[in-house]
């Protein structure tokens, strides 16, 4: 069994600067953005900063063990690979069932890009008052943990407030273990015992 790792933000540290969004979008862009000025590629981060008076933090995929998005996908376009829940863009039909299924709102459907350029659909046209034009292809879009990126997830790397962490299987295991220990200690210290155990 290989439990997934995932990126999680700490809302007590996040200042809502959205650097993670930019880092994510850049990391997945496939073209350079070092020159200022006009750039056509749409800005498509795979995590989104929630910013309300109650809470500020980015939300991204938890790489659920039983990924509802994948289980809901009618065309099998969402798979797991090395513990990462991934969208197979070529299979996606943009039906948004995964958006409906994800309890975190971590799934989005966005224009597909090929080398920073949008892709047109073969058949579907958008009909407007100006006539019909081929529609751009849309695909499901989610965190892929920057799979293959040497520095790991770009969002974690860029966060100046150190609000984002990569929660690994080991991290989780250690934290769970220490909580179990603490829980046991608490019961032992408080003298709470099952009824009838007082002899």
């Amino acid at each position, binding site marked *: 069994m290989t439990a997934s790792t995932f990126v999680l933000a700490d809302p007590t540290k996040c*200042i*809502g*600067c*959205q650097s993670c969004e930019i880092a994510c979008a850049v990391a997945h862009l496939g073209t350079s953005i070092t020159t*200022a000025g006009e750039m056509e590629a749409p800005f498509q*981060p795979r995590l989104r900063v929630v910013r309300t*008076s109650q809470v500020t933090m980015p939300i991204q995929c938890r790489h659920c063990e039983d990924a509802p998005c994948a289980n809901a996908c009618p065309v099998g376009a969402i798979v797991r690979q090395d513990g990462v829940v991934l969208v197979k863009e070529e299979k996606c039909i943009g039906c948004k069932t995964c958006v409906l299924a994800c309890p975190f709102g971590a799934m989005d459907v966005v224009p597909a890009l090929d080398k920073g350029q949008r892709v047109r659909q073969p058949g579907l046209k958008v009909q407007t008052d100006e006539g019909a034009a081929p529609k751009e292809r849309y695909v499901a879009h989610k965190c892929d943990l920057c799979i293959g990126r040497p520095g790991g997830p770009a969002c974690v790397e860029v966060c100046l407030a150190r609000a984002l962490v990569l929660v690994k299987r080991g991290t989780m295991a250690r934290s769970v273990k220490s909580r179990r220990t603490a829980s046991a200690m608490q019961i032992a210290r408080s003298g709470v015992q099952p009824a009838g155990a007082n002899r």
Partner: protein
Amino acid sequence: MSGLGTAFGSGAMTNTINELQQMGPNDAIFAIGTNTTECHPIIGIRMLEAHRRGARLIVADPRETELAKHADVYLRHNPGSDVALLNAMMYVILTEGLADEAFIKSRTENFEACRETVLKYSPERVEGITGVPAEKVRQAARLFATAENGATYYTMGITQHTSGVDNVLSVANLAMLTGNLGKPRAGVNPLRGQNNVQGACDMGALPNVYPAYQPVTDPKVREKFEKAWGRKLSDKVGMAISDVLRGIEEGKVRFLYVFGENPMRSDPDVNHVRHCLEKVEFLVVQDIFLTESAAMADVVLPGTTWAEKDGTFSNTERRVQRVRQAVEPRGNARPDWQILRDLIRAMGYPADYSSPEEIFNEIRTVAPSYAGMTYERLEKLGGIHWPCPTEEHPGTPILHVGKFSRGLGRFSAVDWRPPAELPDDEYPLVLTTGRRTAHYHTGTMTRNCWGLDGVAPEEWVEISPEDAADLGIAHGDHVRLTTRRGSVVARAEVTDRVPKGVTFITFHYTESAGNLLTNSALDPVSKTPEYKVCAVRVEKVSA
């Protein structure tokens, strides 16, 4: 600048940013009129880290900023009520015996006048002005005054008012009252809005002073500069921006050279600015992009970006640091110093500087606070805080240690005055302005950055859920904001970040320029416009 000069003898930030990293449970941070996490994110992060280490955090802002969310006490005061709020805090400190009597006695003057005024402002009495429950003011005052060290931070939320100087004087009063000057993890810390605005001021880019704040009206100073530069110099104070615009209207100003500034977006009442820029006979704009102002110019001089530059920046904490060129300038762009040098030459002065360092060395000869800095030392020490009078001097991270620049710290008696324009039936809401993390000022640079514009591609005006409900506005609707100056359309963000009765807009976006709306009423002393308060009407625009 004017306010702190009056109180302390120097207008700059008294302490340093790094002190935040030493703060703990005995220290207090008082942030008023600063959206630090958004506008100075690195400082904001340091504040939050200090808070996590136990430092007390008090935030006063009409908007519930990210920093406010984390505050131990958050004071949501009405826009333009800062003096009343600060006086009320001082009232609590005075009446509860929390003032630093020794400091007041030994280091300051004019305390009695201040005291007399402050005692008119009990928290209960000013509740109607500030909108802050008295008990919260009391909590905040105690939390701040009982800390061993208390540092105050502010930005434009304090200065951009018709009472801006009064606001600053009040902040200074509070710091002196609690003895929080001349020591680490304390002080009065105006955070500069731009990376080198401190440097520009240091260099005398102000109407009334030569480099290092030496008054143009002082004959001795004038004599010194006439000697250094070999030319006769004027003894008259120059014009503030607002005077310049009036001068254009009156036909007294005929030539305007705008330099790294976009008044068509950054000045209040943009429609009026446009009228003036159209009227001026000859307009030169030097910038890195063709801004709205540059588009109106007779001559555009292409400047260089930060990556193409060499020289020094003097940051908010008076630290002079080297900036090094990373890439060659593009196209016809040239470093600012070269453009200016050639301009001076063309005007008949034999300027023969060959490098920024040469210019810096000349600065050292006329600006005593820079005298001890060399490029070599700046390099080695990673920057030096002025004043640094000699090459042996380590620089001055903390000002006013043992003695204020002006000798004794001066208390001022400051009464609250209402903002110039208040809501009425026609314009029933208050409009306040500010910035967002992704964008810088008029967006000249940031809106040309793919990622930055990507996270904030358009204006979202903040409006409270109550006002939105009254006006039939839903989150994401397009709304029209109208003031006596102008009108803009933007998306509505329905959020309780702003209180009922207050709306917020930035001035980053050409498509919905916030400064078409703002009031050009000025502070009588500093001539800073009241960007932070005006009256506005908001309506839903049908798509």
